[in-house]
């Protein structure tokens, strides 16, 4: 673990992520206003002591919306990646462990899924389910499990014939125990790294969906829809795009630095210097 923190970038990533998580967690305590409180008399006010990040087109306090938006944006990332990772582990484990026709079936399904643009899948599912927060998380999750599946399968393939696995098998361990007791724990690091990087992508996907008007629904705030609102005012109300843009930037950066740092730290070869 000590190794990880030797890289200042990883530390920076960790600090960014924990502070954003902390801010999101205590949002109700520090938000000066109700994030959805409308005040038509105070629209598009520039940042001031009263409104740290100004107000938006309906006079809502941007700072409060950013704090509550953090909860939504981060939750979208976590849940979506959780779903994708779960599906990926199950399918990848089955494919990598049993091989044969199951493997072929699963991997060809992965190929099919990768051949259909994610955006099309998302759009079709959202058109059918309508874009609520939960649906967005589910959709992003259901359309991004392919990478994890490939990863887990590859890990399993390489671990499958290692001595400790063969030994356990010789001692009569059941498939279930082999998978969850031996193979999976030994593949955990790359899975965690890919999940951390996945969260970063999910945050970006959410902001892209908001740009297309398919993101989190009004009046609920997410960084993506605050930023998209701000786009129209970019020449006038700069605070509406600067703060959410910066928040997305920092979060995605933080997750990437952290994920990359972890990967480096656990990749033995890169550390022989």
């Amino acid at each position: 673990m000590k190794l990880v923190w030797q890289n200042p970038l990883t530390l920076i990533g960790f600090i960014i992520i924990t502070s954003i998580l902390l801010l999101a967690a205590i949002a109700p305590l520090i938000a000066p206003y109700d994030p959805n409180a409308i005040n038509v008399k105070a629209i598009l006010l520039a940042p001031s002591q009263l409104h740290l990040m100004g107000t938006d087109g309906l006079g809502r306090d941007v700072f409060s919306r950013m704090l509550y938006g953090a909860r939504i944006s981060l939750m979208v990332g976590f849940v979506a990646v959780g779903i994708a990772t779960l599906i990926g582990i199950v399918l990848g484990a089955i494919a990598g462990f049993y091989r044969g026709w199951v493997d072929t079936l699963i991997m060809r399904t992965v190929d099919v899924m990768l051949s259909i643009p994610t955006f099309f899948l998302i759009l079709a599912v959202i058109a059918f389910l309508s874009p609520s927060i939960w649906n967005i998380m589910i959709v992003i999750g259901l359309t991004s499990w392919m990478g994890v599946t490939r990863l887990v399968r590859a890990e399993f393939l390489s671990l499958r014939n290692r001595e400790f696995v063969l030994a356990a098998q010789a001692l009569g361990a059941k498939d279930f125990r082999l998978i969850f007791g031996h193979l999976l724990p030994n593949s955990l690091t790359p899975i965690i790294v890919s999940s951390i990087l996945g969260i970063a992508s999910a945050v970006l996907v959410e902001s892209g969906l908001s740009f297309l008007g398919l993101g989190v629904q009004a009046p609920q705030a997410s960084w993506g829809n605050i930023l998209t609102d701000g786009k129209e005012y970019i020449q006038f109300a700069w605070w509406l795009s600067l703060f959410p843009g910066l928040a997305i930037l920092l979060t995605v950066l933080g997750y990437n630095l952290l994920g990359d740092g972890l990967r480096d730290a656990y990749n033995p070869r890169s550390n022989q210097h």
Partner: protein
Amino acid sequence: MLMPTQITRYIQLWLIVFGICAMSACSNGEDAAKKLKPNYDAPHPTSLGGTMIDAMTGEPSGLIAMIAGESAASAIAGNIFNSLLKYDKNLELTGELAQSWEVSADQRTITFHLKPNLKWADQRPLSSADVLFTWQKVTDDNTRTPYGSDFKLVSKAEAPDAQTFRVTYAVPYAPALDTWAGLHILPKHLLQDQDINNTAFARHPVGSHYYKLSDWKNGQYLKLSRNPYASQGQANIEHLLSRIIPDKAAQFLELSADNIDSMALNPIQYARIFPSRPDLSKNIGLYKELGNSYSYMGFNLKRKPFDDVRVRQAINYAIDKQEIIDGVLLGLGEPVASPYKPGTRWSNPSLQPYPYDPNKARALLREAGFSDTNGDGILEKDGKPFSFEILTNQNKEREMTAVLIQRRLKEVGIEVNIRVLEWASFLGRFIKPKQFDAVVLGWSLSLDPDQYGIWHSSQQAPGQFNFISYSNPQADKLLEAGRIELNPDKRMKIYHAFSKILLEDSPVVYLSAGYGLSAIHKRVKGISSPAPAAGIGHNTYEWFIPKAYYRNEINDQ
């Protein structure tokens, strides 16, 4: 307020963050200052020539309006094709291709007399045979047009001579003349042995109006040039270039950089950005006119409790329309009390919108049986909380409107959820099968007052336009009478009475009629201001660009 230099600093700050600071060592905004500053306000004689560039968000799918259907197509095709009739600047019908027309005593037959010596842009004569051909096409079952139904009411159409076109209706049809003002006449000689649905003509049109299409780069622009054989005389501006720029923010950047001459503005750009940017206002004129549409919240009258008029009125009282106009439209709109454009003959001047009166709303809800029995702030009836969902499509202004309504209704104890949908799902999944509580939408105001399709009780089938299922025998009777009454004064009384019933029934809450806002570069002269009833666009052919202000086209030196 953010001045240009502040924006520069803001952007440069970010560029520094991104590590591209090396480039930003240059001057801020001095290049712009070096440009010549002509005095656009000086008087100029009319001149022929020049190019006017505007921007649109969508590309026409073709230029045969009856088939293309979308607004981008109508906007361009309207410069290329003529109709028999048109609306003048006071919104009165007048002849376009027709010199005159008569309505028979039994009000069933209309005879149009075409102007003499009309020509297509390819110099072939335009005659009543072309009009008859167009009518045959629009009513043909194999033509993929959704607009045929009005013309199928014509029981007989004939062209007794080259200058005369006559249509006979089975029963008098008051909106008939309006429909002929909306049908672009197509050239028979080019289309008679073509499949109109996928003919190349749609992309190489030949019309009779001021302009002809000279270039169409897919996804980039359409360029129109003056038609020397135009039926209505000559327009002043030589070329109209319509650039396709899907993103409104990018359009505004192009306008700021003087790369386009005109675009439609949103209220923020009009009311906030322009006043804070004297450098823009110096070169660009702003125009505002009452638009041809209104926004409303409509109830699904088949669902409880919206079948109760007291509930609908209560909600109407509980919504602060002025707040929506101020908040969403930044004051750039007017309240409406009838489905007709305020200030026109059809709009009943004695009607007033429901005032914002939450107490009256609460009283009406109590009367309708709603009370907050469990003290959670939400009203209940028969143990069920009053909670419903507002549906709307992806439209920033409608979304904001819904949020404002949500807040006001909460204050009288009604819980509202909002759902925003992409258009095709909105229509296909919710409106057609009538799976909704309430919608926030807009209707365009046609110039003819007939709104049979929207309000008549017979028009409720899935896919028809009375999707809120409004049904009132009195209103039905008036709508039927209005369709066969050709006398404008009598017709006006009918629709005034109809509007009054509609307002009392409150099947929809009228929210506002927004202004159409446009920015046009000051090099373009001859624009009527203030805008007449028909809007600034009524005389675009009279607009001109003084020679001194022609754009420099890039050329090989």
